[in-house]
């Protein structure tokens, strides 16, 4: 008891530092609180309220889960728009994340090999990432205009390009049509989920969305290349040398040394990619505003549009929080997947006879499963 009192009176050698610490933290806490925590809390409140945009949301009424129910269970325009936006964004993520990760890793490996003029390659690849997304979008609008550079190029090869950003046809539907399937079977046409028929869920990204997919890969690969490059440079050369001495091919070195060693960075890149792609907004706002036929509508843009132009603020905020839940869900899934593979499978574990704990590259090189306990 006494001791505790004494301790409270005498702050000890570091006690008063807490005060100074708080003081130094104060600006950050105030700024984060004011511009991050408070707005998020307000938005959460709006998603549970009937706020109509008139005056402060504080005076709105609490309506419980009504806005969420409206979106998820009530057939109507809001629901089908939401379903459509989820479909569009899902295909966008499905294509962008793996492609951009692979391209970034490929570029990083190339740049890391000590070829000449590495600096200029690094700059060239990174350039799109530091350019404003609005500028890039406008550039792509010109490139992919029906009479633009891309179609001009295609015409040299005798190919008549599609009208790209004006083409609402789904990629999978186009491919199926090549095989003569251009009408949905009744089972797919009649079933509905979130206001979108099963057939439309299976449409794939529209031709217009493909332009945004190419754009995303083009702009973000540079950033992720830098992250991979940092990871690659932290791999000790001796590991690769040892593998080389044991006769491992380039591919095997890459597959069994590089990839496992940069796995944490792969997790980072995939997670950042997932978050970024689910939040796509500015490209859509500048480029198409959801056209053609709503096939580039995304939840982030729909949330904005529903709130600001449709005056349905509660529904707009609810979309934002469902999007938040989706992102959290996918991040956890990614984490689980990468965590499970963190442990080297038993058959690939390196044997105890190995000196210095380096991988037994000869075994890797031959591709035989490990014989070790």
């Amino acid at each position: 008891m006494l001791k505790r009192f004494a301790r409270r009176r005498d702050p000890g050698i570091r006690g008063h530092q807490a005060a100074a610490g708080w003081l130094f933290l104060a600006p950050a806490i105030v700024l984060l609180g004011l511009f991050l925590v408070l707005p998020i809390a307000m938005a959460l409140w709006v998603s549970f309220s009937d706020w109509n945009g008139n005056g402060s949301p504080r005076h709105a009424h609490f309506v419980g889960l009504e806005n969420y129910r409206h979106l998820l269970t009530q057939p109507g325009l809001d629901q089908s728009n939401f379903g459509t936006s989820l479909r569009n964004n899902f295909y966008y993520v499905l294509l962008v994340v793996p492609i951009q990760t692979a391209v970034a890793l490929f570029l990083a490996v190339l740049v890391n090999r000590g070829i000449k003029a590495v600096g200029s390659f690094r700059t060239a690849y990174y350039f799109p990432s530091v350019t404003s997304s609005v500028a890039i979008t406008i550039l792509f609008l010109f490139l992919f205009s029906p009479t633009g550079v891309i179609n001009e190029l295609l015409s040299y090869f005798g190919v008549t390009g599609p009208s790209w950003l004006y083409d609402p046809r789904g990629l999978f539907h186009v491919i199926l049509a090549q095989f003569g399937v251009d009408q949905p079977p009744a089972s797919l046409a009649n079933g509905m989920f979130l206001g979108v028929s099963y057939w439309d869920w299976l449409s794939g990204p529209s031709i217009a969305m493909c332009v945004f997919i190419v754009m995303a890969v083009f702009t973000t690969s540079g950033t992720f290349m830098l992250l991979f490059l940092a990871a690659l440079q932290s791999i000790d050369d001796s590991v690769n040398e040892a593998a080389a001495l044991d006769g491992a091919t380039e591919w095997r070195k890459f597959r069994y040394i590089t990839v496992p060693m940069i796995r944490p960075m792969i997790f980072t890149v995939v997670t950042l990619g997932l978050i970024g792609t689910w939040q796509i907004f500015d490209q859509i706002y500048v480029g198409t505003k959801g056209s053609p036929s709503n096939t580039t509508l995304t939840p982030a843009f729909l949330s904005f549009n529903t709130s600001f132009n449709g005056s349905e603020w509660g529904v707009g905020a609810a979309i934002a929080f469902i999007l938040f839940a989706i992102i959290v869900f996918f991040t956890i899934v990614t984490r689980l997947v990468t965590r499970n593979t963190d442990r080297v499978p038993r058959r690939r574990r390196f044997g105890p006879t190995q000196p210095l704990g380096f991988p037994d590259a000869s075994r890797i090189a031959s591709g035989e499963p490990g014989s070790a306990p």
Partner: protein
Amino acid sequence: MHPHLVHPRRTTRSRRWFLSAVVTVSALAVAVGAAIGSPTKSHATTLTALIGSSGPAETFAVNAAAKAYTKQTGVEVNVIVASDLGQQLAQGFASGNPPDIFYMSNDSVATYAKSGVLAPLDKLKNVKTFYPSLRAAYTYKGHLYAAPKDFSTLALVINSASWQRAKLTAKNYPKTWAQLASVAKKLTRSGQVGLCTGAEFHRLGVFMIQNGGWLVSKDGKTATVNSKANIQAFNFVKQMINAGSFKLTNQLGVGWGGEGFGKQQCAMTIEGNWIAGAMTHDYPSVKYRVVQLPAGRAGMGTLQYDGGWGMAAASKNKAAAMSLISYLTLPKVQLGNAKAFGVMPSVKGVAKTWSKLYPQFAAYLAGANYSKSIPNVPGIATVLGDFNQQLQGLPTTDAKTILDRVNRELQAILNQQ
């Protein structure tokens, strides 16, 4: 921080220093916040007007009118050009400090009026001078929520050179759908389609009206989007598309009908009088004529777009704001705007003067006799937005499928009204 930097004995002093620092910082923050937050107090009233301008000519004309008003009354007017009118208005309404007056289109007036952000303008001095149809377009539940400032109808814009090349004369201006289809066919040649317009209700809707259809029933309670008349109208459009003499702007890969027309990718388009500005600035070499749209089975019909001034319910100077709106909708101000950027005045009194000023655009004014405005239903802009998205697929989709869908959506918001 290094543990030995501050000696334990200096605790009380550093605490005092800490306290005073906190006080200073918060005082500074409050002072700065107050300085930024509170508007500079002046004795004269200042009004804010938020406009969505079509270009420098319009911005200049509105500013000139505002200056003239200040000269007359001493009330300062601050004209702000919005880059995204809907978003900036929404921010203003949410903050409780909206612009006093602002542009208001008639498809969003009901949405805003319902949420209570608009002040009624029933007591506007010159309320009787407007065309009744324009007043109706801005009336929601018996109250006028915006003062009409100008309007336009849609008409048929024809490329003169193409018309002559196809050996067509003034006698051939289409009066019926059949004639429209026939001239469009004659005008179609390599690199130029006969007719093009936006893949949206806001253009194609004229065929609905000409065929006796509309979005809602007469009493405004029932959605009639999928009526037989409307299905027939869109099937006529599809027939022309299939015949190759009509293309939607998304098929041409242009942003709007005016662009396709200006680039001579089509010989005719259906557009409002705002096309005049685009033609003058972007395509000065293209000569054109504007004629009335052909009649359908049910007679003449066109769509009408209205611009108006709305007033914020949260405005702190409602009396002054209302007098400013009165001033900005006076015949002489509207004629000034007409001269500056070609809009059609919302007051009956100056129709003749306008016709003399713009004889070549008589078709737009004539359209006012048989035009329809978008019905005032909260949320209609969203439904029509979806209608437009669906119409982009019209060439490959059954018209009835689209109309059934939009009918469901429209009925849903009519029920909520």
